[in-house]
Structures are given as C-alpha cells and as structure tokens.
C-alpha cells in the first residue's frame, strides 16, 4: 500500500462486502490492516475499530430489513484525517440522525441505541447522509498523528 501523501485526498482501499458475519469479518480485517498503518496509539486504534464496528452493525441490523445487501467501505487519507465511508443501499435512516447530533436515550439503562452516540463521541467528525431509496452513508473522520 502506498502511503505517500499528496495534498489531494487518496483512496487507500475500498471493500464491498455483504451485510452478514462474513462481511463483518472481512471488513474488520481490512480496518485492522489500515489502522495499524495509521495509528500509533493503541487506545485510538481501538476507538477507530469500535466506530467502524458500530456503524457496520447498524447496516446489518437496519439497512436491509432482515435481508442481505452490500455494504461499501472506503478508506481515504488526506493531510489531516483518515476518513472511513460506510455506505449501504438499504432503507435509509430516520431524519433525526441526519439532522441532529446522536443523543443518549433518556433511559440510561436501555439495552440498545447507544451505537451512533458512542461513535460521535469517539471520532473527530461524523457525517450521516440518508438518500431516499438509496440507503445511508456514514463518514467517520479520525485525526492523524495519534
């Protein structure tokens, strides 16, 4: 992999996998390989893996309503950030997630619903785009230099 940087953003890798356990395993392997090249700090590396894990799981759980579909993951590098785009072609995401910052449920002891809130707190920037009838794209930014 060539990590020589230009001022432009470069695509380090793109993987397209199915929204299932095999796809998850493959995505995680690629994420580990790329993260190992970028992050020196073990904690930051774990946070990066966790963020991708959470977003990918959301695709599996919600995007295709119990069916399988493809998930397209692209890893970009620019002067400031490692940027990971995770895109599905499923049903889209409720507008509360695209228009507002992810929040914790009022019920702190709810069993689920913390994923995007955690991602938003661990990454450096989070963008969630929902395209009607064309799925959801989540872009997670991690500052380099950790």
């Amino acid at each position, binding site marked *: 992999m060539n990590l020589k940087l230009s001022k432009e953003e470069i695509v380090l890798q793109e993987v397209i996998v199915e929204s299932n356990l095999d796809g998850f395993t493959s995505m995680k392997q690629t994420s580990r390989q790329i993260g190992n090249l970028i992050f020196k700090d073990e904690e930051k590396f*774990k946070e990066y893996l966790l963020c991708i894990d959470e977003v990918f799981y959301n695709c599996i759980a919600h995007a295709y309503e119990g069916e399988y579909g493809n998930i397209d993951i692209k890893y970009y590098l620019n002067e400031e950030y490692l940027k990971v785009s995770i895109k599905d072609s499923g049903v889209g995401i409720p507008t509360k997630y695209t228009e507002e910052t992810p929040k914790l449920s009022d019920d702190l002891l709810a069993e689920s619903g*913390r994923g995007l809130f955690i991602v938003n707190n661990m990454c450096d920037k989070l963008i969630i785009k929902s395209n009607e009838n064309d799925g959801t794209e989540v872009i997670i930014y991690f500052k380099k230099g950790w």
Partner: protein
Amino acid sequence: MLVEALTQGKMKLINVFGEVGFENHSEFKESMLRNIQGDESIIIVDMKNLTYLNSMGLGVIVKAYSESKKQGKELVLSSLQDNIKKLFTITKLGRIISIYKSKEEAIELLSKQDVNI
C-alpha cells in the same frame, strides 16, 4: 471471549476474557445471564482481561445489571481497561453501575457492607 465464574461465600466473581463484539455478543449475553443466577447477593464482573467491548456488549452488561437488581442482587464491575472505562463514562452508565479499581478492592469494600459474607 471467555467467561469464568467462581463463588466465594455470598459473592460471585465473573471474569471476562478477550473481546466482546458483533460476532459473539449473543454468546456473551447467554453466559452472563446464566451466571447471575444463583444464591449470591453480590456479583463482581472483573474486566481486567477484557480488551474490547462494543455497544452490544455494553447492552449485555446493562441487561445483567437490571436483571440482578430485579433479583435483589448487586452487580458491580472491576478493573476496566481505559478504552472500556471511557465507554461507561460517555454513556453515563458509570454513574449507575459501581466500578471498582480492582476485584480485590471490590471484594474488600463490599464485604464490609455485608457482615454475613
């Protein structure tokens, strides 16, 4: 991921090893919910050897805590690694579930609470 449990008087110590994520959270849930059953009134979940936990694993801890409470038991955590401690801080769960620095500290302090142990 591996879950080991041992009973010491009225305390149960649950040691969690490895990583808990999408691939094994169901197994983790089943194991935790099975291990909180029994006559022990205090459950210490030691996470010294837990290196990774995602929101699903966090949900399992919450479920085990709530179930324990329903049964009149106290579930506490000990020895959290920094990345996992951060999860409990940002989700505010650390304000609800007691977290001890080590299992030894948890055993010592909780033993004082219950003279019957």
